[in-house]
């Protein structure tokens, strides 16, 4: 199969030494296996995520994304933009659509971009990596490369918010998306289709400012996973991964729970299932080790 090429928008948190740098590593491994080539958008900037709204007004925020798209259109013409971070994907795609609807905003955007000699044509599809896997490649192609099925590993597919709403993956419902479950099954693992917290918000946006609120939300998500006998949780979103994984100690302190629930990226699952090393799968990036996967990777 011919290599697929995408214009890649990694986002701040995937950068070296940043909170989801492990995500980037596993994604790169996964893409090698799937013969997907990611061409990083040169000199991309932050998307302002969904928390930039206080400081940034509508136009400045749109302009941030506009700059990224413009750069992509300039350097990687004809290539779809793919983001791995849910927030990056959402902000960028939302900006693109908003600028489609509102021509005056688009004009203002371009006036601003002109300051740096950039122009936004705004003709580029903007995808999340999950869309690339499921819509562009398809489950069959993903299954074809499985070397080490995730046999006997029970995995709760935690979809969260931003890969799911408001755009979501084609054909999936907002309330009960099944793509992570299907992915887990594709890789030979045991899914938990009726995991009722799969789209429950983790409160990531408040993780820093109002941790007590976000951590209460995280608690519910982990509890439900335990109730269904999950060995680990898989997620497509760095904010979710970080937020659900790293505060378990603090949650245990607050609520007297004994959570030790590993939370991994789908890309880590694929890397392991495709027979790659723990390092390639960035399992060493787990604060709560995913022992089942470590074991499988070690085999």
């Amino acid at each position: 199969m011919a290599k697929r090429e995408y214009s890649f928008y990694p986002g701040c948190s995937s950068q070296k030494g940043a909170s989801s740098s492990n995500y980037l590593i596993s994604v790169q491994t996964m893409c090698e296996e799937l013969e997907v080539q990611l061409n990083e958008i040169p000199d991309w900037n932050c998307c302002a995520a969904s928390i930039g709204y206080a400081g940034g007004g509508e136009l400045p925020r749109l302009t941030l994304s506009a700059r990224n798209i413009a750069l992509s259109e300039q350097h990687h013409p004809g290539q779809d933009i793919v983001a791995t971070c849910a927030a990056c994907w959402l902000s960028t795609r939302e900006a693109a659509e908003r600028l489609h609807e509102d021509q005056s905003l688009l004009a203002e955007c371009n006036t601003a971009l002109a300051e740096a000699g950039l122009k936004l044509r705004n003709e580029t599809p903007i995808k999340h990596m999950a869309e690339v896997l499921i819509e562009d490649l398809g489950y069959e192609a993903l299954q074809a490369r499985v070397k080490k099925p995730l046999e006997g590993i029970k995995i709760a597919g935690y979809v969260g918010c931003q890969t799911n709403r408001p755009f979501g993956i084609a054909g999936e419902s907002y309330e009960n998306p099944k793509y992570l479950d299907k992915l887990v099954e594709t890789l030979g693992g045991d899914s938990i289709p009726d995991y009722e917290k799969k789209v429950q918000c983790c409160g990531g946006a408040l993780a820093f400012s109002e941790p007590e609120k976000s951590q209460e939300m995280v608690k519910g998500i982990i509890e439900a996973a335990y109730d269904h006998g999950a060995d680990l949780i898989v997620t497509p979103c760095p904010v979710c991964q970080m937020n659900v994984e790293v505060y378990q100690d603090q949650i245990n302190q607050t609520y007297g729970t004994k959570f030790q629930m590993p939370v991994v990226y789908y890309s880590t699952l694929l890397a392991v299932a495709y027979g790659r090393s723990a390092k390639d799968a960035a399992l060493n990036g787990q604060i709560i080790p995913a022992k089942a996967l470590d074991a499988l990777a070690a085999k």
Partner: protein
Amino acid sequence: MGELNTAMIERYRNSFLKEVEANVEEGEWVKMCMQCGVCSGSCPLGKFWEHPPQEIFMMIRAGKREAVLQSESVWMCTSCYNCIVRCPRELPITHIMHGLAHYAKRLGLVPKTNPTAKFAQMFWDNLMVKGRVNELKLGLALYFMNGFGDGIKVALKNQKLGMAMMKTGRMNPKEAFGGHAVKDLAGFHKVLKKAQELEDARIAQNGPPAGA
């Protein structure tokens, strides 16, 4: 920003709805709400709301300007988009909430102690510096946002976590010095400066003439 606030009060007299329509991102949608309450019921932070979205929309119509713009509630949105996908009138509720928050901040009406407001501002300021977010600096700034003493407490509470993050290569002390940045920083700043000017200009001449 106090004078902008006074100007707006003057300009829109008794109609807060019109003020929102003219100055708040996606504010023109507020009038289309039919008070079904699906958004209020859908918000994952629901139980923390003093005023849930649908109630805020009603308050806007009822002209409760201060109560809305000074409310903590508008800062509580986590952008989960539950409300948006369920709203029977397709109101972009998430954006309206953000829009209200931003407008409140412009007018200087944000409750002084609201942590999310502070964090959101920090986040923006942080990314404005180098075009990319510096998680470490953001984190540190965050710890100390409520003063030094408080900051130490928070820092200690998160020390273990910090160590773990570093151990797993997901936090890098070197980021404290320099760190990731956009190469064409000058261009980046020019672009954003321009965008800000255009935005300010629009707000300035926005809305119906005074006395309408």
